[in-house]
């Protein structure tokens, strides 16, 4: 369902040499996959993810979603993909501080001009995330783990085909990391494809495929795939 072909991003840094952040990456993600990409900071993971969700234009290469080239789409169609096909969990805290938790979760619902108000769906997801009691609170009143659950709920509000998470446990403690990853497992079990980028080796075991990113190059770890499947 998601295919990367010869994906490359070069940062032009003016007077010093250009920097290749993503170097001819090829990846084919099938429906039902849980792909973890691990790599050190600066290895190009986030750059690659930003290109996949349509936030950053690749220097060259293709990103195919269900066979359609994402970067050949017009703004309207690309927005539609971001809104309904992809559930994106950005790195760090990405909630709007002036909206309640409920409104934050149903924000993608509102942006797509769908029928209804999305409250029921948003409340249902908050319940699944076990934070329904925080619906009327504001982000500033939540802990880091709670905010991450809200971001996951928001990513799922429009029933996406693929959930893309950028360092979803990056700044969480061990216990909260386990809780968040448990939620990812539950989502995966419901048949949603997941692409997750992390620098924490402890959590890659939750996926069925693991890739390593180093200096912009992506290498799939076939041993892990074998172990997971086995």
């Amino acid at each position, binding site marked *: 369902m998601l295919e990367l072909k010869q994906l490359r991003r070069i940062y032009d840094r003016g007077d010093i040499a250009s920097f290749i952040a993503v170097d001819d990456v090829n990846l084919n993600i099938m429906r039902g996959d849980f792909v973890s990409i691990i790599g050190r900071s600066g290895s190009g993971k*986030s750059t690659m993810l*930003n290109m996949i*969700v*349509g*936030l*950053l*234009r690749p220097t060259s290469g293709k990103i195919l979603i269900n066979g359609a080239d994402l970067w050949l789409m017009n*703004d*309207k169609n690309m*927005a*539609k993909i*971001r*809104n*309904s096909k992809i559930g*994106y969990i*950005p*790195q*760090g*805290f*990405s909630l*709007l501080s002036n909206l309640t938790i409920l409104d934050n979760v149903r*924000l*993608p619902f509102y*942006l*797509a001009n769908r029928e209804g108000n999305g409250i029921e769906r948003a409340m249902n997801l908050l319940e699944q995330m076990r934070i329904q009691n925080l619906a009327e609170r504001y982000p500033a009143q939540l802990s880091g783990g709670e905010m991450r659950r809200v971001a996951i709920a*928001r990513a799922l509000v*429009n029933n996406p085909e693929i959930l893309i998470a*950028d360092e979803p446990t990056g700044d969480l403690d061990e216990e909260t990391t386990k809780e968040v990853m448990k939620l990812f497992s539950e989502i995966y079990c419901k048949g949603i494809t997941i692409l997750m980028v992390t620098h924490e080796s402890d959590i890659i075991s939750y996926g069925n495929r693991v890739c390593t990113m180093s200096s912009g190059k992506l290498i799939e770890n076939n041993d892990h795939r074998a172990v997971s499947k086995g």
Partner: protein
Amino acid sequence: MVVPRGYALSLQNTLLRSESNTFYMSENLVEQISKMPGVEQVSPQLYIGSLNASCCTVPVQLIGFEPKTDFTIKSWMTNISSSKLGFGEVVTGSRVNATFEDQVWFFGQPLKVVATLDDTGMGFDSSVFMTLETAQHMIEISEQTAVHPAGAGKDHISALFIKLASDSDASKIAKKIMSTYPQTDVVVLKEMMQHISTQLNNIRGLIYGIQGLLWIVSILILAVTFTVTTNERKREFGLFLTLGATRKKLESLLMTETLIISVSGALCGILAACFIMFEFRMLIAISLGLPYLQPTLGSTIILAAISLLISVFTGVIACVYSVMRIGRLETYIMIREYE
């Protein structure tokens, strides 16, 4: 208009700025000047400065006129015939606190109000009009408390209004009157109106200039404010795009916000301006030192509507650059600050 020498400016102030003035000259001038060639009609007026009265917070100008010969005050009284104004009856200006059939008291003497003038924006608004006979009676009454300069012999007037024949030269006749009667000054209405018109044009030009300057400054300030605000909110806008908003939707959100802010700001400004304009109208009129007529409700509504449109237009112009800039930025650049 003929007045005692040195009182030309006082007459202007009485007519235009509601200033209470008393100056007198001999009544004989009425007959003498009426016989001069080129003079078609003359009408005397007698001015009395009131003491504090029940109707008013400040002394008002009592103006006695001759209804039979008057051709100046009558033009303001369209609904009553000034020739029917009887002894002890008065017509009050719009700012005199008295209504039809009220009584106003001056020097302890009651006078019956038979009509009230509409707003003129001039000194007439704070004046009380009566026949020359009533005015002379008021002077007699006032002499019970103090000697009045026009009291003895009843042969004084304050000003003489002259209507010229159509083929007469106002300047030449004015010079002739002043040379024949050196105790007088002559104010030519046309020259006075030209002077006021020039003053008003200068003020209007200044106001338009300031308005234009303020408008340009407003656009610049708003443009900078919108740019700074949208810069601060780049992350929020980037997040909207990330979650599936189109750039068109984002631009329409920004424009809607701008319209709400502009309309709210304009309404606040209009309400404040209306409050100041109506509550401080007296202060404005006095400070201006020129004939000042309060805008009617209709013209106020039109002015408010124009102000609203200009404000909204200004807001939209100021916002365009920010909207275009945000529309062009790559989403990743917008949300990068939290990565």
